[in-house]
């Protein structure tokens, strides 16, 4: 960080804004975004816990009979998504060390696994055996998993951009911020899925 010498004598108008935050502005932006995302997911989880726990007419079993969630398929899907975080991490570590092949392989694998997750979720919706009119539990199920799916879609869009830019040689050990930020987002999406899968499918 440098206080520019020319500011005092040659600069006209107010001084440059004091960056009092110790966090890089771009990372701070991502943090604020993720903070707002946590609040958004929090509101959906509030509805979920209301329907399942607080509601006096809450079903004693979850989901209420005769419905059931495809826990195993979602579990495999969870493993795919978690693995994609490992490949994302590998991709970033690779570009930081200047291993371009590792970076590109990591990005392609991450994108492929993210796409597999989303496709599997769409197929799951088609075969789950109920829709939003089946009751509050169904609305909550589609709301939470759909909200997460939308985030996966956004993440995939970011990953696609990073991958394309990666093949065009836009990143290097010195310049990889464009990989770091989608990486943070992707891990966040993964963390949220762990919470969604655990609360909706397992517990």
């Amino acid at each position, binding site marked *: *960080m440098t206080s520019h010498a020319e*500011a005092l004598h040659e600069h006209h108008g107010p001084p440059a804004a004091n960056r009092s935050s110790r*966090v890089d502005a771009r990372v701070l932006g991502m943090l604020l975004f993720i903070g707002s995302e946590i609040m958004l997911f929090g509101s959906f989880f509030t509805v979920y816990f209301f329907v399942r726990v607080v509601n006096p007419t809450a079903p004693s079993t979850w989901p209420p009979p005769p419905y059931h969630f495809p826990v195993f398929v979602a579990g495999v899907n969870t493993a795919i998504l978690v693995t994609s975080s490992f490949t994302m*991490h590998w991709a970033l570590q690779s570009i930081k060390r200047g291993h371009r092949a590792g970076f590109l392989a990591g990005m392609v694998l991450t994108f492929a696994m993210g796409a597999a997750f989303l496709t599997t979720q769409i197929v799951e919706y088609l075969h789950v055996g109920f829709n939003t009119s089946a009751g509050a539990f169904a609305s909550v199920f589609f709301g939470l998993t759909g909200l997460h799916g939308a985030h996966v879609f956004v993440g995939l869009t970011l990953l696609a951009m990073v991958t394309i830019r990666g093949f065009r040689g836009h990143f290097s050990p010195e310049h990889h911020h464009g990989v770091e930020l989608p990486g943070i987002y992707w891990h966040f999406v993964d963390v949220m899925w762990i919470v969604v899968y655990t609360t909706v499918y397992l517990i």
Partner: protein
Amino acid sequence: MESPFRSEEAAFRFLLVTIGAFALIVVASWISTWLGLVVFVVLTAGAIWAYMRQSGPRAPRTHVEHVGPEDEQRVLVIANETVGGEELLAAVGERALATRTRFLVVCPALSSRLRTWTSDEDEGRAAAQERLDATLTRLASLGIAAEGQVGDLDPLVAIEDAVRTFHPDEIVVSTHPEGRSNWLERGLVDAARAEFDVPVAHVVVDLDAAGRRRDG
């Protein structure tokens, strides 16, 4: 506190911790719903405690470039209740005699947090302005020209603000003696030394001793 999403690496670590924590919660809840709830509460409290204990990231060191004529030194003086103290005036005079020096005296506006949050800072700023004016007049009577301004309640922020516009070659922080100085307790001098790559001098002003000397 350091955010778990501060960097990709930190986010990845957080993901691994989340997987481990939720695996425990699931296993516990399969044994008993209440046990699952207890494990969830304990792990959440533990995670919050661990993150709160982490110290925040170190601020990058600010390089302050010299501006103005080569033979001119700029000295930023940060003082509040001690702004008119003899020790501080002596330190300023010493520097004024040594070389061609420009002084900027900054008095952070003393105010309580509650007053700051409710924008009730007028009194604090007026008092700081009064002390500042008296000091500038006193310096002028000694033949030392100095500029002055009232700064932010947080002395480090006041220094940061002044550094950006004044570009000092040296910072002089004036405080009460150890044990009576709120600024010293908060580690202001060390924080300033860690943040800026210019010399930071610490002047201790003992107003009580000066009062006793006057009375005696």
